């Protein structure tokens, strides 16, 4: 989470909003986000509604849920997803921003004016 905070600007520059979901309640989210000065949108999901919707692997044993990330493009399509297999199995910001750059490049191609 600390790494993601440092890298937030890189996502913001790329027209990308970061939504963080987790099992804690709103109060815990608020104190964590305030204490750590996190600029993202924090979405408490104590009933795991979205976690289940997106099929995050739920491990019953003490390790708890594994981290997962999904990149959704401006058209609302899921373009990349990563389901972690262990606690530190998280893609780097460089990988993620490279993917966003690809999405941005696609948009420029599809929205650039055509010469008549």
């Amino acid at each position, binding site marked *: 989470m600390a790494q993601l905070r440092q890298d937030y600007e890189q996502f913001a520059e790329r027209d990308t909003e970061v939504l963080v979901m*987790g099992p804690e309640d709103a109060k815990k989210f608020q104190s964590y986000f305030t204490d750590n000065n996190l600029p993202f949108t924090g979405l408490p999901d104590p009933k795991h509604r979205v976690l289940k919707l*997106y099929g995050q692997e739920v491990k019953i044993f003490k390790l708890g849920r594994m981290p997962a990330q999904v990149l959704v493009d401006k058209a609302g399509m899921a373009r990349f997803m990563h389901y972690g297999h262990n606690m530190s199995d998280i893609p780097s910001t460089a990988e993620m921003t490279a993917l966003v750059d690809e999405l941005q490049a696609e948009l420029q191609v599809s929205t650039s004016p055509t010469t008549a």
Partner: protein
Amino acid sequence: MAKVKLNTPAPDFTLTDYTGREVSLSDYKGKKHVLLVFNRGFM
């Protein structure tokens, strides 16, 4: 449990953020890319 498929519409959802604001994935459609981070927990 079915997982989300690539290059298909991401399932929409609405949650209330910790400040009490309702946030839907569809709010960002046509405006921004969205990186969804499913956190395992802060502790």
